Structure formats: structure tokens, C-alpha cells
């Protein structure tokens, strides 16, 4: 059974220089954010923004413990259906496990690539990880049993002491260990 240990707030801010079929996109773009193969959230469509739309929309998603990437997909509603303009992958290591505190508001931007792998603009988001819910998640230093998508998967204890703040290098990483 899935137990999500974290929620993440992704505010989809804007995108730049979107092109479809070698022309600048005119309108009706929206973004689909996915942290888990089964769940996704979408923004509303920007009707006027053209090739550099802005949405400023906050989407809240559950992020399973073993998620490695959050995918960002920019799509366009055209007369002939919804087309993918470009996608980007937001590695969870960019928001967790770097030097910042867990609740830090990250402003991030990624290169979008189209279906053929070519560059197609940039997407700008801000992301904040919400503190894990106590009742669902075990304390960081204990060995959690049976969490995650597959029941045979176990998260090993990484044994990292949390809370040792003042070290500048050669020191210990702070924050909740994430299995990446």
C-alpha cells in the first residue's frame, strides 16, 4: 500500500520561448506536474501568454519517498488536441539533500526538451517541500519498514545524525536522509 511521506508544493511560475512546429506558440499552454507515475496535477491554461506564458499557480502533490524526479510537462491545447511542447525533469536532489533546510523555498529553472530531444524553452518554478506528516513517517534515525510502492523494498538506515548544523566542509549533511 502506498503511504506518501512528503507533500511538495510546486508553484508553476512561467515559461519562456516555447515553440511548436518551429513557430512560436500562440496560446493555451498549460503545465502537468508529476511526482509519481499514478498522480499528476495540472495548471489552468494561459490563454494569452503566447510563447512566454505565466501561470503563477501552486500545485500540491504527494511525493513518495523513492521519487527521484518530478516531471514538468508543458502542453498546448490546439484544435487538433493536446500536444506536448516540452518536458523537463526536476531532480529531487535539487530540493532535498543539498545544503539548504528542508522547508527552503527553491526557485528553479529547467531547460525544456521537445519529443526529439531538442531545446525548446525554459520553465520556471518554485518548490517547497512540506515537512513530513508525523503519524505516517518514522523518525529519521529509525529503520522504516514497509514504506514505499513495492512491499519488498526497504529503506535502509543511513545513520546520519540530524541537527549538526555548524560544519562547513568535510562535515556531515544535515536534513532527513533521502534514498536517491
Amino acid at each position, binding site marked *: 500500500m502506498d503511504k506518501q511521506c512528503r507533500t511538495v508544493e510546486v508553484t508553476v511560475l512561467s515559461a519562456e520561448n516555447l515553440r511548436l512546429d518551429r513557430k512560436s506558440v500562440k496560446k493555451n499552454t498549460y503545465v502537468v506536474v508529476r511526482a509519481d507515475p499514478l498522480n499528476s496535477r495540472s495548471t489552468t491554461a494561459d490563454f494569452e501568454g*503566447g510563447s512566454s506564458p505565466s501561470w503563477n499557480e501552486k500545485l500540491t502533490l504527494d511525493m513518495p519517498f523513492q521519487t527521484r524526479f518530478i516531471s514538468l510537462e508543458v502542453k498546448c491545447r490546439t484544435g487538433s488536441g493536446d500536444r506536448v511542447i516540452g518536458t523537463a525533469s526536476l531532480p529531487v536532489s535539487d530540493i532535498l539533500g543539498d545544503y539548504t533546510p528542508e522547508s527552503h523555498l527553491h526557485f528553479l529553472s529547467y531547460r525544456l526538451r521537445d519529443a526529439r530531444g531538442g531545446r525548446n524553452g525554459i520553465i520556471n518554478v518554485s518548490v517547497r517541500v512540506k515537512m513530513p506528516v508525523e503519524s505516517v513517517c518514522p523518525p529519521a534515525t529509525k529503520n522504516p519498514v514497509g514504506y514505499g510502492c513495492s512491499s519488498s523494498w526497504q529503506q535502509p538506515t543511513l545513520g546520519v545524525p540530524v541537527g549538526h548544523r555548524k560544519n562547513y566542509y568535510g562535515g556531515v549533511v544535515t536534513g532527513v536522509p533521502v534514498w536517491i
Partner: protein
Amino acid sequence: MNLFLLPYDVFILLKYALQLSLSASNLLDRDITSKSDPMVVLFAKKRDGKLEEVGRTEVILNNLNPTWIQKITISYQFEVVQPLVFQIYDVDTSYHNKPVKSLKLEDQDFLGEASCVLSEIVTRHNHTLTIQLQNRNGHGILRKLGALTVHAEETIASRTAVEITLRCYQLANKDLFSLSDPFLRISRMVEGGGYVPICKTEVVNNNLNPVWRPLCLSMQQFGSKENPLVIECFDFNSSGNHVLIGKLQKSVADLETLHREKNGANFVIQTSHGHEKVLKGQLFVDLFLEKEQYSFLDYVSSGFELNFMVAVDFTASNGNPRNPDSLHYIDPSGQLNSYQQAIMEVGQVIQFYDSDRRFPAWGFGGKTPAGTISHCFNLNGSASFEVEGVEGIMAAYASALHNISLSGPTLFGPVINTAAQIAGQSLSNNNSKYFVLLIITDGVITDMQETKDALVRASDLPLSILIVGVGGADFTQMEILDADNGQRLQSSTGRMATRDIVQFVPMREVNSGQISVVQALLEELPGQFLTYFRSRDIKPHARHVC
């Protein structure tokens, strides 16, 4: 405020006009029949040591604890150290009815003098500083001369800003196979009649009726609401040769009127015959919002700090330090080498904004006494990477030259990652520190992609990086890091830099102004600082905002 709504390379001029209010206590009594009649004269000490008068208060009669009403206006510049000298004079009765400006100081009785640096005043809580008065030139204190209290206040202009949304209608088409890609550039008139750009919009592709994202202009950028601004509309060309579609001249007050009356203003263009032709294309102001925003000094006086960090290049290309040709040669006559100059000029300005004056100092590209080449070693050779004061950096640098053998290659990655780690970890403790890393190097880096990766990762942290290139190398490649051409840095994993946090300047660039090349690097720091905190809606600590 949405960080990404800003054009990536917005110009922010940050010169604050400050008003100084003065009061004094226990002044010397010079008069026989009554008390002294004091007046304060403020001087700025120039680089050559000469004093230049900035302004004077009025004369207060018969008072040894005066509070002057007349404020003295001075322009605060972040990027230079501004030494001030306050002199108090007892004005003789015979001059009491004369205008204060006409009084000759040599005819008055000197009561005492106080010196400080302007940034000392503005970094205090409540922007107030009390200084003991001394004899001229600080020559001993023969008797108690009293104290002077200086309080600095920003003028209203510093905090006012306007947010405007501009739109155009029926612009001329300048492209051959598609439509124009318009963007606007707004410039402000300066003394001497020239125009200086103050901001640019983003480019809207292929559109003759573009709507741009909201622009935020602070009063420091546009001067006053009546100051004429020139708004030019260009057709963007990737070659850099943008074609002018049209221009018009409007003040901020005019734009407010356009918004209120929902009118459009026509663009004009100079014809080849020399006169102006009115075009069909029009500018509309869809949104006009006046607002207050906190200034850099609001943050700084409420406890926000700038933390200075330094990294020095110890690669072999600098030349053997014992050799007078070496960039690391320490001249016994006391003349500073390029490294020392850069450290002094940046350190001396920033030190006032750092409360504990403990600065991380590293070297890179050198071989430590242990025999290993390190790309991030403590400059003072000990386990502690911090030194005290700018003097501490200079001492650690000089001693490192004896202990470290120059090696290579030139890598920035480790130093930037270490600085970023410090900046990131400080966020756990508090949200009010901003870090400034100064890297001084003589060569071009060999780890361009790793450096870009480190910079992209650092771009979301409260960190700015100043890079000074010394010596004669060709630094063109380094200018890519500066991203002034609007190209955001991209990491090897596809992540783009959130902000442009790097500034690079080669030291040998000729400068003829009063600010050195290195100090010009500092001009953009307050803007980068503000962008970081404002985008996260982090306000100055409420208790201390005056």
C-alpha cells in the same frame, strides 16, 4: 514578487539620497558672557585626503546641547567607502544675522571634530551613531569636547516604486518572413542631457500587439515622477542589431495619466529628412500601481548582513612570488599588488556590513606544505578557515605565499561549492545573511562546465560572486559566466541559473572615474541582495525599521 518576471539583466541604479539630522551634547563653552552658538559643517574626505564641504546646519544660539533643525543631504553610495568629517564651530555674534553659507570658517571658533564612515551610520539600528568630538585631525583630547549624534534618514524617494503593465497596438512590422519581436527599453534623462537605460522588458515573439509582463521601477531608477523618460520599442534580432520601431517621451506622471484616461500614446520616429514622423503604433498602460518597498538600508539597519569571503589564485602562471614580475610579488615599499588591491577595495567597503568581521579566506591551485594540491585550502593555513578583518586576510595571504607552492590548474568549482555550502547552511540558522564571494584569479578556468554547474546550484542561494581577473590573460571566456548578454547559465543536468549571481571584471580595464574598476563590481550588489529577499517576500526585521 515573482523572480522570473524580471528581465534577466535589469539595470538598477541605487544611489540613495540621505538626510542627516544632527545633535550634540556637552559642547565646549567658548563664550564669556553666554554659551557657545554652535553650527555643524559636514565634509566628505576625498581619496587624496582633502576635505570637500557637503553642507551646514543653521546656527543655534546659546546652547551646549543643541539639536539642529537643518538637515544635511548626502548621497549614499554602497560601492565606495565614504569617510565623513563633522566640524562644529562657535559662530561669533557679529555673524549671527548673516546667511550660514556665507560664513568663513576661519573666522569662527573651532569646537571639535568627529569622523566616521557613512556606512557605519546606516548599518546601525535606527541609523544613528554617536561619536566623541576630538581636536582637529584627532590630535589628542586636551579637554572634553562633547559628543555628536548623527541620524540618517532616507528620503521618500528611496522606497517608492511603481508597477506598470505596458502594451502596444499596431506596431510596425520590421521582419521579413514573420512579425516583429518587440521589446521596450526605458531610459532616463541625466544631467548633461544624455539618456541612461534603466530597464528593459522581455521580448515578445512575432506580435505587433504585444503585452509585456509587469515592470517594477523604483523612484531611484526614474528620479522623480516628472522626470522625462524615453521609451523605445525595438524589434529583437538575435544578432544584437535590434531595429528601432519607434520611441516616445513620457514621464512616470504621464504614464499614470495614460492609464487613468485609458489613452494610447503614439510612437514617433526620425525620418531620413531629420524630422519626426508620428507612427500608427501606440503604447497603452494597462496597469499602474504605486507602492512602497523596503530599501537596502531598511534591511541592513534592521540586522541583515553581508558576509564577505575571499578566494585567491595560487596557480603557477602568477609567477614566482620572489620575482618582482610576479603578480604575487609583495613590494617592500608598501605598494600593493593586484591581489592586495582587490582584497582591500572590496573588503574595505563590505566589512561595515558584516557584524563579526570574520571572513572565510581560501586559496586554490596551490600545493600545501603537506604536499597535496588543493583547490580550496584555508589561506591562514590553520584548521580555521576564517580570519579577522581585512588586515587578517592580508596577513594570511602574505604568509600563505611563504608556505604554499604555486601549482595548478585553475579550478573554481571547489571554492564555489564550499561558499555555496556555507550560504545554504546559514539558511537553517537565519534568513538574514547574504554572502559575497570575491575570487581573484590570473587565468582562465579549466573547469568551465563544473564551474557552471556550481554556479547554477548556487544561484538560488543568498550568494553573489565577484570575480576579478588580474594580469594580462585574455579573459573573454570568463565573460560567459557574467551572463550580461542575457544568456542564463545552464548546468550539465539541464538546470538553468535562477539569477545572475556572477560579475566579472578584468582589473586592467581603464577607468577614469573616481570609482575603481573593482568597486564598480560592488554597484550591483545591493540590487542582487534586494532581488533575492524581495522575491521570497522576506522583509526587514520589523522592530528596527524606522
